């Protein structure tokens, strides 16, 4: 069982209203291309992530057993923190840990990375960063998250994989 909470009283923000009705203007035109944009990546991260209870379960372990806040409510991730360039096949996600010493930062980053790896075309280069100045070991975390070898190694670690999978898979309850 988990001992003590890292951040017992996180600030909870209201969820920004999302334009939920997306204009599928290209429905009629078979040949047009919908480029992958910021909102789509954010949706990948959230519409599924926060809907799959597992993550909120998981985050609940980290934050507060009383209130299952989503990463969005805690402003760990916002729509603006996603930068996408479809033509260059590049995506960059910047997330903000709630406290400077959040030891879950790497786990959150890894979850985000795995989620994107599984959901974006393979041509994409994924770049995950901690927002500048928000984490004590910012450089280390950034390095860890973007080092291909280390990510691959992390995903060999069954404990970590289980944790990440738990985050991303639908729950049984």
């Amino acid at each position, binding site marked *: 069982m988990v001992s003590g909470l890292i951040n017992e009283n996180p600030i909870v923000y209201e969820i920004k209203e999302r334009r939920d009705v997306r204009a599928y203007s290209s429905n009629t035109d078979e040949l047009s291309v919908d480029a992958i944009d910021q909102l789509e990546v954010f949706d990948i991260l959230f519409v*599924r992530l926060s809907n799959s209870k597992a993550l909120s379960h998981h985050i609940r372990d980290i934050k507060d057993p009383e209130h299952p806040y989503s990463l969005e409510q805690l402003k760990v991730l916002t729509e603006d923190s996603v930068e996408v360039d479809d033509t260059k096949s590049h995506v960059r996600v910047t997330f903000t840990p709630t406290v400077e010493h959040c030891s879950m930062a790497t786990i959150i980053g890894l979850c985000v990375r795995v989620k994107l790896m599984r959901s*974006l*075309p393979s041509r994409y280069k994924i770049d995950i960063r901690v927002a500048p100045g928000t984490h004590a070991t910012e450089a280390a975390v950034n390095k860890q998250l973007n080092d291909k070898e280390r990510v691959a190694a992390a995903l060999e670690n*069954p*404990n970590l994989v289980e944790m990440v999978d738990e985050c991303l898979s639908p729950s*049984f309850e």
Partner: protein
Amino acid sequence: MAAPSQLTEHLETFVDVTRSPTHHADSLKAIVASLEKGVLSINQLVVEMDMYLTTTDDVVRARGILLLAEILNHLKSKPLDNAVVHSLIGFFTAKLAEWRSVRGALAGCLALIKRKDVAGVVTATDAEAVAKSMAQYVQVQSLALHDRKVCFELLECLLEQYPEAMINLGDLIVYATSEAIDGEKDPPCLMVAFHTVELLARLFPSPSGPVASMASDLFELISCYFPLHYTHTKGDEASIPREDLSRGLSLAISSTPFFEPYAIPLLLEKLSSSLPVAKVDSLKCLKDCVMKYGVNRMKKHYEDIWSAIKDALYSSTGTDMSFGLESLTSTGFEMDEIHREAVNLLQTLVKQDVSFVGLIVDDTRVNMVFDTISRYLRYEEMPDTSKLEVLVVSQILSVSARASVESCNMIFETFFFRLMNTLGIVEKTSTGDLVHKENSTVSTRLYHGGLHLCIELLTATRDIISSSEECSSTPGCAQQSWCSIVNRFSVSLIEAFTSAVQSSSDDCSADAYLGVKGLLAMGMFWGGSSPVSRSEFEKILTTLTSLITAKSAKTVKWELALKALVCMGSFIDQYHESEKALSYMGIVVETLVSLVCSNHCSLPYPMILEATSEVCSTSPKYVEKMVQGFEEAFCSSFSDFYVNGNPKSIENCPQLLECVTNKLLPRVTEIDGLGKMLVHFAISMWNQIESSVVFSNDVTGRDFVEAAMKTMRQIVGVALVDSQNSIIQKAYNVISSSTLPAMKSIPLTFAALEGLQRDLSTRDELILSLFASVIIGASPKASIPDVKSLIKLFLVSFLKGYIPAAQALGSMVNKLGTGSGGTNISNNCSLEEACDIIFHESFASGNDISSDDSSKTKCGSETVLAKICLGFDGSLDLQTRAITGLAWIGKGLLMRGDGRVNEIALVLMECLKSTNSSGNALHPSAMKHAADAFLILMSDSGECLNRKFHAVIRPLYKQRFFSITVPILESLIVNSQTPLSRRMLHVALAHVISNVPVTVVLDNTKKLLPLILEGLSVLSVDSVDKETLFSLLLVLSGTLTDIKGQQSVSDNAHRIIECLVKLTSYPHLMVVRETGIQCLATLLELPHGRIYPFRREVLQAVTKALDDPKRRVREEAIKCREACCTAHHYTFTVKDVPYKKLCSTKKILTVNGQFPGQTLKAYKGDTIYVNVRNRASENITMHWHGVEQPRNPWSDGPEYITQCPIRPGSDFLYKVIFSIEDTTVWWHAHSSWTRATVHGLIFVYPRPPKSLPFPKADHEVPLILGEWWKKDVRKVVKLFTRTGGDPNVSDALTINGHPGFLYPCSKSDTFELKVEKTKTYRIRMVNAAMNLILFFAIAKHNLAVVAADGHYTKPLNATYITISPGQTLDLLLHADQNPKRTYYMAARAYHSNPVINFNNSTTIGILRYTSSKCTKTSSSSKRYPKLPYYNDTSAAFSFFTNITSLYSGQAPVKISRRIISTVSINLLMCPNNSCEGPNGSRLAASMNNISFVTPSHVDILKAYYYHIKGVYGTRFPEFPPLVFNFTAEDQPLFLQTPRLATEVKMIKYGEALEIVLQGTSLVGGGIDHPMHLHGFSFYVVGVGFGNYNVSEDPSNYNLEDPPYRNTVTVPINGWVAIRFIADNPGVWFMHCHFDRHLSWGMNVVFIVKNGRGRNQQILPPPPDLPPCYYNSIV
């Protein structure tokens, strides 16, 4: 009830409290029935019951009285003698004094008092006695819930039915009631209680009465509930909704004016609270009070209430007003509930007492508004606060004005002048008089706020009129002062509003909105006494109309004006204002209609049409006008175009016609006479064509022709038969006078047909199309003249390429001959004749077809038309036209269910063949048309042949056609030779399949699925077929999700996936890709493992789809990929990992480095795949304990029984098939003693929507009990197998791998479970210890057992549990203890044999409440659980035997075979007594004296499956070979030696087995044995101590609800009997789950042979089964 004994029996049953409630209900019913039938009289009953009613046994007496009461309750409508009633009520009244019988007494009183008038009632005196007795003896609040409710009901009844009697009681009854209510908490009781208060208040209205004197106390009792607040669970149906209860409370509070001094201050105080619910309730309650308490009492509170209302209004209103169209007729802003209630209250107040208005009039805040409004001219300029002020004040004023005429007058007198003054309509003269400025519109100041207030007031007066006129016949409003005020200002107001509209710019909708709304308000006064004169009214209309006509584009202003006009129109219509209607007609309608005709206006034509149709739709009179106008407009533009050749004039006609079809036709049923007008319209269309004999313009307006056809069709469609006839007649006259009839006289030669194409004039074409439309729309009853020649005409024209002609022909064929009798002229031609003409009319050509007999005629009716279709003659064009025409004719026949359609279908299919009967290949385009003909045949057409156009439709015609054509098409596909023909046949089939209702497809999935799949792959080749492909794909997706289709889906899974994978990259249609991926995702959800082998393919396809250009496809792909990844696949890497426990570190074998191993999760019925990778240095196998693995022994796991071990470095994929397992099972290694550290839990969940049979817990807690050796377990095994002695006992017990602080170095290595108070935890527990049965308990907490060994049990509350190795339990733990304390959980051994060494230590875990984390707990507050003593056999087995299955009647009652086997410990002699067992011998174990020798080179399953000889024998005895006193204290030594062998027991499939396991006292006095059977769960039907007695013991079996388990503990020197049906073919191990006994040979193998059925046989072996190395060794 013939015999009294029967009655006695029933009485006995009811009185006996140990019987079940159903028994009670049954006996009650029986007695009531006999009473009702009159077999038994009530006197007799009472005499019979005497004993039960008077006995000194309290319980029996209480039951007896209750019975009597219940009986009376059922006999409410049976007439009874008054004397009987009297004596009964006397009896019950007396019994009220006895607290034990009070329940029955209350119920009895209630039943009697509730009696109907007819049937003998309780007298007033008796009722009084009841009430007295109640008041004296019954302490309501000390009773149970149900009885309290009865009490309140009794009180309610008494008060309601015996008012006089109760008044006599006076104080007493009031006192009793208040006593009863005091402290009540249950909603249903409160509901009744509130009502009794209300009744009391009604009974004692006098100010000197008891209620008045006790008002303060009584009010205190009920006021404590205010405002009601309770949060009960929503699913609780019996409970009362908050609204009802709150209403009841409000009624109680307002019930008597005596409450006033207490109630009003309380309500005002609650109103100021911040809780919205409290506010709403207070406002509602205040309203009730105002109405009940009377003006005088309320007056002193007016000021407080007024300020409270103001507060509520200001705080609850938003500042946003909508200026949309909808709000033109409504209040214009959203009201929340508080606001609404505040408004209601205000209105009630004003209505009650007009003097309240004085408060409003004097209010500073209200008055201030009139000063502020003049600061801002436009809405946009106003600050939010000012907007709010205006809004609220307008609301207040309008509500109070609306309340009554007097208040209205007051408001107007006070405010209207000021308002006018502000707006500059009146001016103050120097003398202070207000002077109305007549002609000074220039100086009017159009302040937004002012206008707003004005309008609100005006609208309010309108409501006043309508409400006052409804009740009084004399419209007296003209005399009212407000009316004269309005009248005085009406001219200037209208001007002001007009200028507001006109001056407002287009972008400022707020001002325009106000202007229009103001005009509307002014225009909607009604009756002769209207303050607005007719000329002013007309002015308003003119203004609005000019607004509409002036604009050239659609603006908000335009729409507002239109809406206002429509409102006024319907208003006039509603109140039958004939004068105004005339004005409206003259000004609005005629202007607009003239616009339609003249078409010389800047307004775009569609807008003119919209305005006209909207305005005119308000009254039938206007509609008439409009149709006339339209007719005129149509005629003029038609002739202008065709006769005068003006190309522009035709442009508006389609729009006009569209307006007619869309706006007018749907309303035919609503508006009287509209049908007639439309018919007139249609006829005048024909007239127009007739009169314009020569068209100067030869260009056809395509749009026009289509719109005309549509209009014509629909008008004919909705018209009555008579009108249809007249239209047809007219049309026929026109057509017969045209040049068209010449066509039918044309000789039917190909030359003529092809030549004629060009020489049909525009006029003829128009006439033909319109005529076809008339025919399509006509009903079967309408008469069509000269059918035969018309048929010929249509025949010729469709061959010339006029599709409408073909449709008309189809329609004719469909409707012919169904008309009734002589009225129908068209039955001069029967269907046969018509068909004869169509099919047999010969077309003369160069070569004579009709004499061409060389072609083989399939059936007698193969026709001439058919031959054209088949391409014998004529050009390709002709052929395709013939095919399409034929399809339409076929559709007509098909829908009426005529058999001739089959011939047509055959012709069409002939066209699709690669080579037809004459050996010629058809042209591709002809084939394409033939394939599409099936679409025409099957699909619903909007153009013709549907219900709207009176088509004859036979039910299920599609299904019929489907069942005829599909087999033929199928065989044609099989035989087709060219790819083209094949494709075309598939297109045709796809049309048929996708248009038939999906249920039909579902009934035939087995047959259709392969066809659909083939169709999909054929159609995906060419982009031309994309629409067809999509509709076929939709059919497929329909079958995937349906239960009916699932079996064949799973049979064809491979092909479906292959096909879908291909479609995920279909380039031509996005929806095809999207649907394809959705289908794949659906397939992945199927519970069977068929999908798994294709996982890789699916994954690849879906990954590729992640890069799809379309976002929707990508989203589906992500979903699908997720489903794919989580689809039940696990990897177990077995490896050595160092772990530190008990002060030392050792390497242990783990799965994925975890100890204990990970928890697997699955739904019931799932199949999961676990890839076991052996990366350790020893052999391993994996067993899924408790998973029955139907037909799949290959993945069961015991080493050398069902498989050879997985060698280091190699892998094996286990397929774990869940079937009937419901809850918790587990997995562990099954090779040597490796399971010591290689184990984990498996959570099974019910597959949604199924749910658990017990309440869902808040959290799930995995809990694994285990054993830990400091030494390497391998070494322990090695040692004891070498020496032959007992193995070393373990060093510690563990909970989830933690030994607990009682062990050395383990202070921090203690399992801790954090719980929250009031939550429920579901502990899913397994005993994974190697050699110990364990007791487990948690201090102060009860554990509810809800499942055992993967199956539900009846809930069992236990203070401790016993769990044998291999068993699993699901326990519910309610965290209901003092959260300040810490509680321990503990487990230690149950060990019954003192001779044998065992680990007697205790493992401890902590149960901590999360809130207690910070408070330091003292050691005294720690609680250790109580565990039974080590050798407490009765404690251990009382737990086991208390477990029962949740379901009853499932265990086999009859058995076909009983196997009795001993389980015993034995000794083997060692040379020189050199072993370390007793007396230097070697320890062994046996069943039926055979100590099982595990094969060492090849497993038994493989040997059985591949018939390898010499691995095992089949002679395991069914009965102990030596019968002796198995449980005697001393046993002769010779019995101790077993036979060493590998013997199995062969079982036939489906046998009902009973296995009795008999423990023995051999070697050291015996011990308990937890026996586990693989492959089955069994029912533990009997357990006993001593020797099993085959003749006696079976009679004591529990066959009703025995526990359903997979591991059963044989008690020390006792026996168990288990039963199961051997319906799982395979090789199944049975063994003692003490691993030392397993190693010594207490095992047996059952081989269940294959059954006959397909699914009664072992599955084929998996390809990667670990190899055995017997060949190289032998």
